[in-house]
């Protein structure tokens, strides 16, 4: 890693790491009797580890000019490994949380392990840890291939990747200590938020600098989606996290917004985190990896453009459907509902575009679990966007809101769409990145696929049942016109579904464990002969696809 940096990059790395260490020191001193101090210590450790790493390899020979003739893939490799690490953590905590609703005393009488603290640890580990690392890793890969240009330098990709993971670690450890803004999916406190902005700006600059040097006249559509992801997440993140810290020595801050404005800002953020973190970026992934794996160009490139702008435009209005029948003014609710329903059009255009791309390659879908991961992801994408539009209808929402149906819906999207497309893309790119002919074991990919699919189905069906039962029980009246069930009745009725859900989650987790083993074995496999490594990826050019003409 260090050996690939030029001398001046090594020096710059030292300066940055020193600055990070000093920030950590300041946090540690200012927050010595606050959780902020613990985070200061973590930052110092991270900074020092980096400094030692750089000094250790400081006098290694500089990389040769020849590197410039190759893509820079090491950050992508590490990013994929980190993503797989986070998915294990996130899924494990998730399943633990699920079991807590079956056996509530699984907290062992401690604070850090109680439901309310580990639940955000679960969501952040899977969304930001797994999803974020996968997005960064694949975006670097795709960006270089589609621009036919190498990343601008060797240092900034590492800054983004490792800096981002520092953010994830601060976030996750913070929740366990009770450091949270309590804004869903935006829980990290002010200092972590500021750090993320710094990392994000660097990420954006990498994108810009590579795109500017691209050798293709046209920016491939995947990059549109990745860029919308980077840009809009930045806007959302900054606005929603505006807050005033109690002092420089406190982890705690108070949100700049309150009440109804805060609710609207929060769900504008929350829903668009779904749109631009969990949808846009992963669509970018899909539009690159799926055509290549299937060996066919995207069914309709034009449709992908139309759906891009549709998604970018309409999602932004949809957030208020999280606030139906609340104290939010009704016209905002109606607007949110209308746009949520219209969103079905670009969403299904994307899903349909993906599935039609597979037309003529269905035999591959049958034989190749990696491609099947992507296919199922597109199907789940279609299903959960339909469900989402449906649930945004006011009268449906009056039943579904606050219940497990929402949880089921989110997991249809998160497990069925996000995780599946990611696993598919990772299985596709691991052999390409590490120059292997194929994954260590195709059978293990099959196992992972079936465990993931059945786990998702068990999960989603359990939550549909529990959510609808819950919603109905809350609004059932006796003949004499009183409420038929107490709240606790509805809690008791959930038990079988909570057990089923936890089992579904366990299946999904086992699949991911298998995936990690498989990836690890692939990486460890002996190097292949050089002539086999020459080709960037071992996909034969499909018949009828003309060779690319330079200078177009």
């Amino acid at each position: 890693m260090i050996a690939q940096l030029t001398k001046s990059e090594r020096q710059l790395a030292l300066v940055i790491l020193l600055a990070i260490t000093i920030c950590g020191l300041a946090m540690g001193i200012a927050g010595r009797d606050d959780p902020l101090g613990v985070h200061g210590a973590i930052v110092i450790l991270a900074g020092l580890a980096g400094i030692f790493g750089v000094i250790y390899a400081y006098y290694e020979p500089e990389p040769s000019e020849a590197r410039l003739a190759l893509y820079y893939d090491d950050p992508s490799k590490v990013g994929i490994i980190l993503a797989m690490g986070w998915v294990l953590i996130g899924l494990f905590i998730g399943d633990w949380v699920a079991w807590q609703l079956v056996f509530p005393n699984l907290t062992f009488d401690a604070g850090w392990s109680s439901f309310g603290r580990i639940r955000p640890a679960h969501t952040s580990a899977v969304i930001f840890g797994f999803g974020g690392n996968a997005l960064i890793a694949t975006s670097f890969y795709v960006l270089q291939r589609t621009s036919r240009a190498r990343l601008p330098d060797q240092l900034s990709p590492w800054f983004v990747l490792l800096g981002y993971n520092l953010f994830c670690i601060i976030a996750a450890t913070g929740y366990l200590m009770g450091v949270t803004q309590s804004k869903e999916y935006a829980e990290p406190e002010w200092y972590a938020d500021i750090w993320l902005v710094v990392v994000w700006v660097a990420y954006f600059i990498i994108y810009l600098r590579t795109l500017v040097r691209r050798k293709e006249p046209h920016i491939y559509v995947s990059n549109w989606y990745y860029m919308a992801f980077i840009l809009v997440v930045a806007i959302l993140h900054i606005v929603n996290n505006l807050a005033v810290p109690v002092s420089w020595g406190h982890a705690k801050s108070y949100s700049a917004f309150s009440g109804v404005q805060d609710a609207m800002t929060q769900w504008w953020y929350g829903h668009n985190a779904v749109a631009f973190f969990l949808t846009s970026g992963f669509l970018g992934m899909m539009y690159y990896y799926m055509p290549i794996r299937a060996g066919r160009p995207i069914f309709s490139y034009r449709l992908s453009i139309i759906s891009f702008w549709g998604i970018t435009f309409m999602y932004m209005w949809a957030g208020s459907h999280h606030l139906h029948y609340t104290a939010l003014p009704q016209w905002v609710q109606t607007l949110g509902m209308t746009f949520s329903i219209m969103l079905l059009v670009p969403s299904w255009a994307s899903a349909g575009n993906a599935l039609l791309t597979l037309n003529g390659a269905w035999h591959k879908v049958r034989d190749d679990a990696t491609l099947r991961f992507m296919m199922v992801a597109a199907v789940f994408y279609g299903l959960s966007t339909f469900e989402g539009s449906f649930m945004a209808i006011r009268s449906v929402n009056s039943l579904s809101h606050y219940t497990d149906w929402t949880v089921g819906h989110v997991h249809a999207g998160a497990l069925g769409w996000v995780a599946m497309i990611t696993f598919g893309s990772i299985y596709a790119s691991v052999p390409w990145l590490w120059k292997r002919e194929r994954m260590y074991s195709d059978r293990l990919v099959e196992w992972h696929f079936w465990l993931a699919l059945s786990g998702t189905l068990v999960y989603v069906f359990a939550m549909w049942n529990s959510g609808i039962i819950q919603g109905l029980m809350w609004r059932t009246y006796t003949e004499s016109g009183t409420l038929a069930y107490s709240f606790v009745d509805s809690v008791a009725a959930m038990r079988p579904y909570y057990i089923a859900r936890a089992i579904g989650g366990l299946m999904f987790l086992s699949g991911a464990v298998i995936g990690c083993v498989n990836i690890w074995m692939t990486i460890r496999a002996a190097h292949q002969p050089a002539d086999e490594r020459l080709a960037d990826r071992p996909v034969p050019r499909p018949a009828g696809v003309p060779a690319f003409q330079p200078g177009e």
Partner: protein
Amino acid sequence: MENDLTVWLSKSFGLFYLIAMSIGIVAYAYWPSNKKQFDDAAQSILGNEDRPWR
């Protein structure tokens, strides 16, 4: 600014904006002279490129 006015602006402006946007995008996507560019782009990722162009 008056609340009624901002609300009114939001409600009306949103609609016009949406329609103008949609027309613009569809026109761009189906503009005949753009066709070749898009077709090339769709094919471009399938090319067997293993290193950046210099």
